[in-house]
């Protein structure tokens, strides 16, 4: 059943026949990656088989990830490495790819973009033909008062950047003083999970620094914003009522599904817990309720069992 219930989504744990019934009603399945189909360099047990089986049953499968550190061609290699046998580049939507698409197709950028980001973002921008302001190597003694600014910069894009420095923050802030300069962020994730329960700072923390410095709010491309869904839909024509979102992070994946009118499934192989989901369901605040999933599964492998029965 399509999840459009007001005031209280179910958090219904699905098994067997219920999963089959849900899938019968859906044509397209959107998967988050980290914590759903893989964890680091290890596939979630059964995930490769689930993807193949869904395709065999005539479903379309897409991958929607906020992780902006790799270009799509690297993702294809990762899928292959982890045993997913038939995932095509066109099925992969990362926040890096979608940010480039946004700049080219929605903003129709006339000029350059100043990027605080990593290799994955740079590659996607180049592949999309979006000009990137070159970062000159810092001269000794260069300061924010003396460093040159590129007059062609008409947008700032901020994402995960392991080479983030104060100077980059200051330069981006200078560009953002012009109200005509666009302000984009790849994704809002404050931290990324690594193996063993550890975390590392995410794009959201760098975006927060720049928002505070510029007194401006970024337009966020990644989940839970709608744009990634619109991007997939513009290429493949998705019907929200016949689409399913499967993710592990309530504030990004489930809220994304909710914002786009999709039915949502939380899997418990990643970040969020069942207790957290129930707390959102029982909350009085509408925004929090939208973070509660329609359905819960232990793992995407449950789909395998359901379809094979």
């Amino acid at each position, binding site marked *: 059943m399509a999840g459009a219930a007001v005031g209280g989504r179910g958090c219904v744990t699905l098994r067997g026949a219920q999963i089959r019934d849900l899938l019968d009603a859906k044509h397209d399945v959107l998967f988050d990656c980290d914590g759903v189909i893989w964890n680091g360099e290890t596939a979630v047990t059964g995930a490769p088989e689930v993807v193949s089986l869904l395709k065999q049953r005539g479903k379309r499968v897409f991958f929607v990830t906020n992780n902006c550190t790799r270009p799509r061609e690297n993702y294809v290699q990762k899928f292959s490495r982890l045993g997913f046998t038939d995932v095509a580049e066109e099925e992969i939507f990362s926040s890096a790819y979608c940010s480039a698409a946004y700049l080219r197709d929605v903003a129709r950028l006339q000029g350059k973009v100043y990027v605080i980001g990593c290799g994955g973002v740079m590659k996607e921008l180049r592949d999309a033909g979006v000009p990137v302001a070159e970062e000159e190597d810092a001269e000794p003694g260069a300061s924010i008062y003396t460093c040159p600014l590129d007059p062609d910069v008409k947008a700032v894009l901020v994402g995960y950047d392991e080479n*983030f*420095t104060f100077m980059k923050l*200051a330069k981006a802030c200078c560009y953002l003083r012009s109200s005509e300069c666009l302000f984009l962020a790849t994704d809002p994730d404050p*931290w990324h999970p690594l193996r063993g329960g*550890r975390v590392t*700072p995410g794009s959201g923390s760098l975006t*927060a620094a*720049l*928002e505070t410095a510029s007194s401006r709010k970024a337009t966020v491309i990644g989940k839970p914003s709608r744009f990634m869904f619109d991007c997939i839909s513009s290429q493949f024509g998705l019907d929200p009522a016949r689409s399913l979102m499967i993710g592990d992070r309530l504030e990004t994946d489930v809220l994304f599904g909710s914002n786009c009118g999709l039915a949502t499934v939380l899997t418990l192989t990643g970040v969020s817990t069942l207790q957290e989901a129930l707390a959102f369901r029982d909350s009085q605040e509408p925004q929090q309720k939208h973070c509660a999933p329609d359905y819960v599964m232990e793992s995407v492998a449950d789909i395998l069992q359901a379809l094979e029965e």
Partner: protein
Amino acid sequence: MAASKCTQLTAALSRQLLDSVDCVLFDCDGVIWRGDQAIPGAPEVISSLKKNGKRVFFVTNNSTKTQQMYADKLGKLGFDVTADEVFGTAYCSAVYLKNVCQLDGKVYLIGSNAMRQELEDVGIRPVGVGPDPVSGVQKDWANVPLDKEVQAVLVGFDEHFSYMKLNRALQYLCNPDCQFVGTNTDTRLPLEGGKAVPGTGCLLSAVETAAQRQAQVVGKPSNFMFECVASQFGLDPERCLMVGDRLDTDIMLGSNCGLKTLLTLTGVSTVAEAEANQKSECPQQQKMVPDYYIDSIADILPALQA
């Protein structure tokens, strides 16, 4: 609450106001200096206040100088002050960690050498100051070696701020017993040469977002900045005047601590903003209305010298 507020400080009112206080606290940037230049007449005001038997202190959110470095800067600009009269957030954060957080160990410091020095002077050992470029790959970063003696993370202004420093702070703050303190939340450094330089508030936003925790903030408008001075020098709030140029830090601090407040117009805030706050229904905005305003603190000189 004063019967009338946001009144222009005339010569007659100056005399009255000065007689009603024993101590005057000044913000620095935009009040007694702008960048590297003294506001004309400001040094004379300070000297005159002291000659009139008033105690004078300086209270600034800037964390890049020690008490002695401030005394040196003020001396060069013609002000007659001693180091113990200047309260910047480098010094106050060290006192806060020692006395309020009861720290007895190390602190992971994102900040300046001045902050490092003030911490060492109160017997706290800082780690982490200086450049910290990234090395290794992502899985190494979650496993950076953590110093077990670190009991707090302190964030102040740091031109060497980097992803690596943000990462280390996050790793320490994953331990809920590790305390989290910030010097101030100002979003920009005072404008120098026309370029807006991001302030400590930006660095603090980054760390707070990554760690999903809120820092305890030492700087104005937190009461601690006044309490730090008051506890060392035995001040009576009702006999104190706070002079500043920012409604959201200086005047708010004065209101919260029960001081008299004077807004000078040589800096950030305007009379129009003060009057808008006065008309507002919001209790927070009501705290950002000064008792008096004046074009420049030099304008109280005649009343002092009369």
